[in-house]
C-alpha cells in the first residue's frame, strides 16, 4: 500500500535501509514492537505518532544507541544489527537528537568540525580541513553568524539547527531527524522545510520525525505512523491524514482538518470562529502588572521598557519570534533573572525585589521551557516537588488525584523515572507539577513544544478547564494560531519590546500578524 503512484526519479525502488521485526523492550514494556520498515533510497520518509509511541527509540535502535531486543537491520546490503554505535556514522548514517546534545563548552564551529572529522568513512577530514568544512555547513543551515559562540549560549531553535549541522557535517547518505522543528515559528519552519528539501535533493535519504503537521505534510514522500510501539499506518501523506485510525490515535479532529488543508492547498489556516474567546468582563482586577520592565543577561539587554497586564481569570498569550525575549520576560517575572529597571506587581503587591521562592509562595508558578523535570525522580516525586511550599497538607492528596484525573497518563506512569518519559509525557508532568503548587497565575513557556497534535489539543483543553476553575494563565506559544485561539488577549513581543496588544480574536485577524507569524 506504500508504493508511490509515480515515484520521482530521485527515489529508487531499492531500499537503503530495511528493518525487520524490530522490538525493543525496557523491562516488560515494549517501546517498539515488531516494526517492519523500509526506507527507500532518496526519499523523505516522515514518521508520525503520539508522544511515547516509540519513534525516538526506533531511531536509537537504528543508530546503535539502543540494542534491539529482537529484529534485524540491514543498511545498504550490510547487516548492522550488532554494529557498535560509533561505526554507524562511518557507514554513512547520521542523526539529530530530540533532546539536543551539543558539545556544550565548544564553539558552534568546533561542534560541527567534530562531526566533519569523524563522519562517513572515506570522507573523514583532518582537524584543519574539518574546521574549514564546518564553516560551509554552518552557512548552509544559517548558523554562520553564531560560529564562534559557545554552544551553551544558544537558544533552543539554534541548538536544533546545530544538531542538524553536526549531522550534516558527517556526510551521511541516510539522515535521521528527530523533531528538528520543535520550537520554531512559522517562518522559521518554512526555512527549515526548504533546508531539508535541499539536503534531500542533494542526494541524502531522510527519515524525519516531526509533529509540525504543515512541515511533515509538505516535505514527506511517504508517511509511517507508530502508536504504542507498533506501526499502524504507512502510505502517502494524503492517505495518512484521512485514515480514521491515525486521526483517532494522533491527529485529533481539529488538526486533521488543518493537516488535510495543508496537504490539499498548502495552507494551514482553518478559518473558524468557534475557538475564539471573548475577553472576560472588563471589571476584572489586574492580577499581574508589569511596568517599564528592562532585563537581560549580564551586559546584554534583551527587554526594553516592557509593560503588560494580566487580569484575574484571564488567559493571556505572549507571542513573538524566537529571540524576541519571551522567555526572558517570563524569567524576569519569576525573578530567575534580575530586572534592570521597572516593576512587577502581583495581586497589588510589589514583587520586583522578591526572591523566586517568595514569588512561588505568592502564587506565581512557572512551567519552564524544556520542562526542567528532575530526571532521577519518579513522576509522582516530581509532582510532589510542586507542594514544597504548601502548608495545607490535607488538600495535597486530593490535588494529586485531581492532577491524575486531568492527566491520566501521569497516573499510569506515576512510578517511572521522569527521565524515562517521552517528550509529551514530560510536558504533562511539568504542567502537573505546576498545578500541584495551586497557582493563582500559571506561567507556561512553550506549551506545545515537541508534542503530538492530539496531546496539544488535550493540554489546551486542560488549560481552558483550569482557567475556568479560576486559574489565571500567561502562555507563551510558538504556534501563534493555537495560542490566540485559546487566549482572551494577546501581546506581541518584538526584539524586546511590546509592539501590539489586544483581544486575541482581533490579533488573529490582524493582517500584519497573519503575515508575520502564520505565513499567510
Amino acid at each position, binding site marked *: 500500500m506504500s508504493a508511490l503512484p509515480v515515484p520521482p526519479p530521485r527515489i529508487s525502488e531499492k531500499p537503503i535501509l530495511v528493518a525487520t521485526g524490530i522490538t525493543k523492550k525496557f523491562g516488560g514494556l515494549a517501546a517498539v514492537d515488531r516494526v517492519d520498515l523500509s526506507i527507500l533510497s532518496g526519499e523523505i520518509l516522515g514518521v508520525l505518532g503520539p508522544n511515547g509511541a516509540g519513534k525516538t527509540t526506533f531511531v536509537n535502535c537504528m*543508530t*546503535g*544507541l539502543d540494542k534491539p531486543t529482537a529484529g534485524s537491520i540491514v543498511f545498504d546490503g550490510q547487516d548492522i544489527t550488532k554494529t*557498535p*554505535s*560509533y*561505526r*554507524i*556514522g*562511518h557507514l554513512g548514517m*547520521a*542523526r539529530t*537528537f530530540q533532546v539536543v*546534545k*551539543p*558539545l*556544550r*563548552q*565548544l*564553539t558552534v564551529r*568546533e561542534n560541527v*568540525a*567534530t*562531526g566533519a*572529522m*569523524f*563522519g*562517513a568513512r572515506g570522507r573523514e577530514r*583532518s*582537524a584543519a580541513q*574539518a574546521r574549514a568544512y564546518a564553516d560551509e555547513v554552518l552557512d548552509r543551515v544559517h548558523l554562520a553568524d553564531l560560529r*564562534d559562540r559557545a554552544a551553551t549560549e544558544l537558544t533552543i531553535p539554534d541548538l536544533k539547527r546545530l544538531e542538524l549541522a*553536526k*549531522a550534516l557535517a*558527517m556526510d551521511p547518505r541516510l539522515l535521521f531527524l528527530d523533531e528538528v522543528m520543535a520550537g520554531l515559528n512559522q517562518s522559521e519552519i518554512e526555512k527549515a522545510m526548504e533546508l531539508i528539501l535541499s539536503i534531500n535533493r542533494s542526494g541524502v535519504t531522510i527519515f524525519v520525525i516531526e509533529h509540525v503537521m504543515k512541515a511533515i505534510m509538505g516535505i514527506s514522500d511517504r508517511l509511517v505512523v507508530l502508536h504504542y510501539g507498533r506501526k499502524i499506518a504507512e502510505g502517502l501523506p494524503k492517505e495518512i491524514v484521512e485514515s480514521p485510525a491515525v486521526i483517532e490515535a494522533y491527529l485529533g479532529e481539529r488538526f486533521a482538518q488543518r493537516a488535510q488543508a495543508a496537504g490539499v492547498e498548502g495552507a494551514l489556516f482553518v478559518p473558524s470562529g468557534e475557538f475564539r474567546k471573548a475577553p472576560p468582563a472588563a471589571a476584572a482586577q489586574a492580577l499581574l502588572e508589569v511596568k517599564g520592565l528592562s532585563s537581560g543577561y549580564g551586559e546584554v539587554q534583551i527587554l526594553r521598557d516592557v509593560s503588560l497586564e494580566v487580569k484575574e481569570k484571564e488567559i493571556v498569550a505572549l507571542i513573538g519570534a524566537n529571540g524576541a525575549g519571551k522567555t526572558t520576560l517570563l524569567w524576569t517575572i519569576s525573578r530567575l533573572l534580575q530586572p534592570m529597571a521597572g516593576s512587577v506587581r502581583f495581586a497589588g503587591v510589589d514583587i520586583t525585589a522578591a526572591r523566586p521562592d517568595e514569588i512561588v509562595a505568592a502564587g506565581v508558578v512557572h512551567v519552564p521551557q524544556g520542562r526542567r523535570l528532575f*530526571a*532521577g525522580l519518579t513522576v509522582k516525586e516530581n509532582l510532589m516537588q510542586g507542594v514544597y511550599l504548601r502548608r495545607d497538607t490535607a488538600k495535597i492528596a486530593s490535588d494529586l488525584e485531581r492532577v491524575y484525573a486531568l492527566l491520566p497518563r501521569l497516573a499510569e506512569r506515576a512510578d517511572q*523515572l521522569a*527521565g*524515562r518519559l517521552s517528550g509529551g509525557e514530560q510536558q504533562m508532568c511539568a504542567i502537573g507539577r505546576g498545578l500541584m503548587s495551586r497557582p493563582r497565575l500559571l506561567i507556561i513557556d512553550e506549551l506545545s513544544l515537541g508534542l503530538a497534535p492530539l496531546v496539544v489539543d488535550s493540554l489546551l483543553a486542560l488549560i481552558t478547564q483550569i482557567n475556568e476553575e479560576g486559574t489565571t494563565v500567561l502562555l507563551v506559544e510558538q504556534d501563534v494560531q493555537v495560542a490566540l485561539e485559546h487566549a482572551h488577549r494577546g501581546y506581541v513581543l518584538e526584539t524586546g519590546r511590546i509592539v501590539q496588544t489586544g483581544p486575541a480574536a482581533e490579533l488573529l485577524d490582524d493582517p500584519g500578524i497573519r503575515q508575520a507569524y502564520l505565513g499567510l
Partner: protein
Amino acid sequence: MGFLALLALLLALPKLVSSYKLLTYTRFLILALMAQGWNFIGGYTGYAAFGNVAYFGIGAYTTGLLMIGKWHVPFFPALAAGALLSACVAILLGLPILRLKGHYFAIATLGVAEALAQVADNWDSLTDGSTGIDLPIKSEGEFFYYTALGFVILGLLATWAFARSKIGYGCVAIREDQDAARMLGINTTLYKGIAYAISAVFAAIAGGITAYQNVHVTPGDFFKIDYTLQMIIATIIGGVGSVAGPVLGAAVYQLLSTYIWGRFIELHPTVLGFIIIFFIVFLPRGLMTVIGRRRKSGERPFKASDLLANVRAHRVT
C-alpha cells in the same frame, strides 16, 4: 617573547639558586608533569581519575628495579620501560573501569591505586615489601631539574598538539556528551583508553625521576594519595582542559606549599581545603582564563565543578 624570557630563566635557574632551592623547583616540575598527565584524562576527557598515583608508583618501581638487580639498565631506558608498562596497565585496567561514569569511575580508580599499593607492599620477592628498594645514588640536582624541565616542555608541546588533533577533539566530545560523541562516529572506548594511557605515561615519568632522585622507594612514599590530590588541585588551580594550566597551577601550588604552608605546618590541610574551595567557587576555569586570552584554540577549559557531573549527561537507564 614572554615565553622565551621565562624559558631562558628556567634554563639558567640552577646557576642562580642554591641546591636546596633547586630541589623545590624540581618538585614543582615533577608536580607539573603529573598534572599535565592528569589533564588528558581529567581535563580533556572529563573523567575524574583519582588513582593516577598508581602509575607514579609503577613508574618509580619499574625504573628502580631495572636500574638495580642484575640488569643495571641505564636511567633513561629504565624510565621509558616504566612509562611503557604504565601505559599497558592503564589500557588493561581502563577497558573495564572506563566503562564506568562520573563518581563510579573516580571510586574505581581510587581502588586501583590502593590495590597496587598493596601489591607493592606484599610482593616481597620483587619489591622487598615495605622496606623498599634503593637505587644507585646520583647527587647532581641539576640533572633531575633539567630532566624534569625537558619532560615538562615536551608535555606542553604534546598537550598543544593533542588539543588540535582528532584524538583531542574526540576526547573533548566524550567529555561533553558521550552519546553525541558516538553518533558523531567517535570510538569512545578507544579514545578514553588513549587519554588514560597518556596520563599514565606522564605519571610514570614523574615517578621514575622522583625515584632516582630520592634513591629510596617504598610503597608508603610512592603510592600516597597525596600525589593524586596534588596533581588534581594543581590542574584545577591552573585551568582544567587548558594547555599551560597544569604547569601554572603546579607553580602556584608549589609556591604556596613552600612559602605559606611551610610556616603553618599544622594548618596545612585546612589551608589547602580553603584554596580548593576558593578556586572551585570563584575561578572554576582556573588561572589560565584570567591571564590568557579567552577561547584560544587548544584551550578547552571546563569547570572543575563539572568534573563529576558527566554522569548527568547520560540517559537514565
